[in-house]
């Protein structure tokens, strides 16, 4: 069943938590709602489940307006962040709860649960109580308790935030499996961008009660639309730029971040909407930066600026490197095998013009006709923007 939110707003004590939210989740989609804590994610899920009434707006499930239905009649399954298992009931009774509410015969319930308990490996635990279970087991019981009632829509509110890394990977794989088999429309809430990228068919980024971007993980990662989204997915290089010149393929940008001792020029891909003199924010993926030794003459036809390595931290098989470009701190992620520099060494910083992504929403989408012309560097602009000072 598809889910649609239309103009949902909700305030608590006059403080707006959700503002004019619109969202469409297709039937069978695994949709991730990503955002920092306190951004309104739980309220949004609660509104869909019917546990919180929106001030205005409506919720449609399968095209039917359910805004006025009580939670139990919306066919929405909800798994809570803290699992919310019934502490006085054992695993069997917890899972059977929703079926007993529906007045199923006990024989039918026993038969149904036997199948599910065996499949999830909870057979042995069926007479244990929630406080005796591990985090992963609680999670499984909470999920099963909802799934046996055969909801049409599944809402998962930060289901893995209190699990350790190892259990997290397991549960994550189980969720993917369940989704693949049942094809339940799922909304998964998280503040963890890694989870969002690995699970979501599409991701909505919720910030201060507003959805800043709805996109596939791929698009979100490489084409964030706002500064917040860029930073939240880990692109911490935000450049304040002004369009200095354009031609068909490229635009020359004057970079003028606060703290920069001297403005410098960079070449970026041109978009039809760029106007000369316009101010724009660019983001630069730390992975798209190459470093080379100052004494190596190399020209890849892209942007080349000089900087000094300010800091280097260890992250598994990569280094995160901070490079000082005349007062601007640029962050790069460099595989350990390619890093043969010293801290405080002067280096060349290289990146292609299309590594710079403008943060200006949908209007900066690459137009159809230019999709294939990456990495074409136009010689006519070269003189303008080299800053190999």
């Amino acid at each position, binding site marked *: 069943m598809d889910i649609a939110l239309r103009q949902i707003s909700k305030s608590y004590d006059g403080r707006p938590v959700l503002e004019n939210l619109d969202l469409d989740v297709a039937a069978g989609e695994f949709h991730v709602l990503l955002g920092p804590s306190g951004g309104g994610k739980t309220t949004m899920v609660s509104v869909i489940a019917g546990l919180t009434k929106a001030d205005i707006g409506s919720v449609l499930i399968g095209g039917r307006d359910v805004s006025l239905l009580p939670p*139990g009649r919306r066919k929405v399954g909800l798994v809570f962040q803290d699992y919310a298992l*019934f*502490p006085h009931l054992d695993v069997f009774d917890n899972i059977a709860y929703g079926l007993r509410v529906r007045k199923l015969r006990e024989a039918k319930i026993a038969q149904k649960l036997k199948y599910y308990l065996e499949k999830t490996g909870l057979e042995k635990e069926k007479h244990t109580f929630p406080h005796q279970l591990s985090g992963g087991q609680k999670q499984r019981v909470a999920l099963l308790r909802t799934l046996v009632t055969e909801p049409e829509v599944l809402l998962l509110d930060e289901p893995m935030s209190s699990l350790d890394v190892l259990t997290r990977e397991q549960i994550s794989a189980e969720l993917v499996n369940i989704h693949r088999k049942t094809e339940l429309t799922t909304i998964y809430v998280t503040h963890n961008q890694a989870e969002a990228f690995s699970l979501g068919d599409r991701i909505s980024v919720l910030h201060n009660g507003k959805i800043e971007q709805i996109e596939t993980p791929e698009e979100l990662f490489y084409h964030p639309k706002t500064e917040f989204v860029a930073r939240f997915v880990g692109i911490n290089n935000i450049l304040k730029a002004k369009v200095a010149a354009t031609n068909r393929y490229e635009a020359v940008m004057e970079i003028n971040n606060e703290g920069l001792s001297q403005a410098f020029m960079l070449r970026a891909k041109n978009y039809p909407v760029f106007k000369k003199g316009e101010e724009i924010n660019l983001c630069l993926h730390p992975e798209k930066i190459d470093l080379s030794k100052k004494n190596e003459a190399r020209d890849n036809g892209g942007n080349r600026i000089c900087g000094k390595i300010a800091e280097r931290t260890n992250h598994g098989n990569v280094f995160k490197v901070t490079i000082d470009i005349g007062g601007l701190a640029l962050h790069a992620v460099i595989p350990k095998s390619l890093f043969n520099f010293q801290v405080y060494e002067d280096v060349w910083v290289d990146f292609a013009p299309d590594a710079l992504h403008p943060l200006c929403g949908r209007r900066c989408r690459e137009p159809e006709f230019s999709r294939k012309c990456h990495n074409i560097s136009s010689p006519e602009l070269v003189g303008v923007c080299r800053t190999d000072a």
Partner: protein
Amino acid sequence: MRNLLFNLMISMLSGIFICLILFPLFALFTATSWSELAGQFKSPLIVSAIIISFQTSLTVVLAALVLGVPMAYLLATKKFPGKEILDTLVDLPICMPPLVVGLALLLLLGGESKFGAFLSGRGVDLIFSRPGIIMAQLFVAGPFLIKSSRQAFEAINENVTKASSSLGASEFHTFRKVLLPLARNGIYAGMVMTWARALGEFGATSMVAGCIPGKTETMTLAIFGYAMSGEMGSSIAIAMLLIVFSFTSLLVFKSRIRKQLPSTQRI
């Protein structure tokens, strides 16, 4: 050194208070011999006082349960206009001197008031009778049950209630299958507190009961009566029985409270 001095000071001051509690209890327990004590319980008047006390206090617990648990549920889970006022009203009896409660009931039910005259004209005499005692004790002791049950309801993880309703349960079903079982220990503790308070109630009861031996004289009234007329032996006997009850109920209450903690802190 300074820590030692501080701890010594703290212990000393605490010790004084403990003495204040222990010395009178000691005096009470050594005032009479065990055999003399046992003999007292043969007096039919004393036995009837015990029976009356139990009848009234147990009825109070039952009434408090039926009327108080719904109130506790209302206060713990609902939002409605005037909730603040209701909340204060329910707490008022805990702060109010029981004697004043008794006086108010006397004025309400006594023959001189219109309501009292109306009732008495229909053959219903609430004053100087057991129903009057029950009303007085319910007024004074009922709020303890409400308070304890309410805290128990409030301690339940809100998401558990939400989970129940999102699984399709009606409010009544959730109340019966989730909230009541989870609040059970708190409700029991409240019942014990209410019972102990009703059993030991003196101020309100003394006003409306009228101390008719064998009819409305409860244990506390009997203690007062015997003490005032100098029959200390009878007075002490009943007092010691009351202490045993209140101490037992305190222990039950404490063990319930302790049992309750893990169950509410469980996920």
